[in-house]
């Protein structure tokens, strides 16, 4: 995939009658790019991700996803677009009644693929994220680090064109955070566009990827190596 995957043009967003959390935001994500989305708590990082995966609606401006204007996108066309993306939620949001294997197999199953066509991919992916011995385990029996890696496996199993990750290292120690960053970088290397919302300054600095920084409703872009304000 080449070209622009996500484009925000003068986007404004507010929750109810609250003051806008995002004011006139503009940026774009090119195919195959890796960006961090930073900012203080409540600055709107999760809101930007929600706008992209169509959980929230912008109050103003224009959002394009894979070239489609989300404001005019028919409801029936949302599902096919969502199948082209993977989402890692801050609070994991795993299906508690399903095993790690079933959780990971969710996206191909929803896409209508036959089990034989993806069961080996799912098994290999779980081994890749270090859950090879926990395939049958229910999420409630996994540690936070394991849950996080399971959430990543679920998000990437269908080889999404864009991966949105909301604080993927928020619940794990530094060693696991580095491991998760390596996983995301490997995915990016094979062509997946990655957008990671994080307040983990060490992780962001260590990765060296471009940063979209939110502050007081506005957004500033910092390219690779460009110095950011503390």
């Amino acid at each position, binding site marked *: 995939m080449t070209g622009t995957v996500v484009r925000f043009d003068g986007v404004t967003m507010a929750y109810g009658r609250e003051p806008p959390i995002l004011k006139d935001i503009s940026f774009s994500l090119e195919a195959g790019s890796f960006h961090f989305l930073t900012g203080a708590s409540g600055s709107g990082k999760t809101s930007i991700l929600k706008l992209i995966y169509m959980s929230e609606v912008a109050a103003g401006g224009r959002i394009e996803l894979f070239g489609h204007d989300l404001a005019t996108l028919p409801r029936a066309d949302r599902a096919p677009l969502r199948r082209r993306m993977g989402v890692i939620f801050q609070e994991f949001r795993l*299906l508690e009644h*399903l095993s790690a294997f079933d959780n990971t197999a969710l996206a191909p199953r929803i896409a209508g693929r036959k089990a034989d066509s993806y069961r080996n991919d799912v098994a290999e992916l779980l081994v890749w994220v270090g859950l090879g011995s926990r395939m049958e385990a229910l999420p409630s029996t996994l540690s936070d680090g394991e849950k996080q890696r399971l959430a990543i496996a679920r998000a990437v199993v269908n080889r999404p064109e864009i991966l949105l990750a909301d604080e993927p290292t928020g619940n794990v120690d530094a060693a696991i955070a580095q491991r998760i960053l390596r996983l995301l970088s490997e995915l990016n290397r094979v062509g997946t566009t990655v957008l990671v919302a994080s307040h983990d300054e060490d992780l962001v600095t260590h990765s060296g990827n471009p940063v979209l920084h939110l502050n007081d409703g506005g957004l500033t872009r910092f390219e690779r190596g460009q110095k950011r304000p503390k």
Partner: protein
Amino acid sequence: MSFEASNWSPGALLPREDGTQRALLFVIAVLAFLACLAAIGAIASERAAEGWKDQLIGSATVLVRASGLESADAAAARAAETLAGVKGVAEARALDKAKGDALVARFIGPDPLPADLPIPRLVAVEFNSRQPATTADLRRALEADGIDATVEDHSIWTAQIMRTGALARSAAIGLFLLIAAAAGALIAFATRQGLDARRDLVEILHYSGASDDFIARLFQVRFARMAAVAGAAGGAAAALAGAGLHLFGKGQSVAAILPVSWTDLIAALPCPFIAALIAAVTARLTAQAVLKNAP
């Protein structure tokens, strides 16, 4: 034992049924039981009405009055002889005077009647079942022999019985529709409640690329299966109740009104399918309506 991916089969996307759904299953089973009883009752009462109609159509009563010097008894005997000769009459017989008196006694009391009271005599006529005579044939034969008589063909009673039968059928259909509507409303409520309780699951499915139709189908299959089980249980209970009525109701007044036969119990057979169909359609439409407003 280690996990083998090749042996894996997908788990149910909706969690197992909870207590609310078990209560719903019980209520649907009760509704199915009532619907099947209504159907069995309608079939049995329809047959009772048909039987009574056949009995009435197959016979007539003739009131014979004395005329001139001929006594009522003699006129009745002659009328019976005349009517027995009419084509399409299987049997005609004059009833005892006591029977005529008993009929009149219902209206004027049990005291002995004055001897000179001109009580008409009754002649009971049974028609041939294949080619029955008409009341016009009877009247013509009686007139030809100069007998003063009135032919009562029971048409008033037949019409009333048929109206009663039609009313029973309409009542059963109305009751069935009412029960179906109640079951549909229950399923719609349960579907809304299920979607609300599983909001997080529904959101994850949506964000993983599931369409509204995909999610609605999950609830449709869940409730259709549940309704099929409830329908089978309710239908079986109704069939048992019908069998009990057939076996133990003989000689009771209820058996005369509702003469349930073994074949009537077949009415309970389609119950699981109808219950599943109502649940499937209702759950699907309700889920689609609710999901339309989801992110």
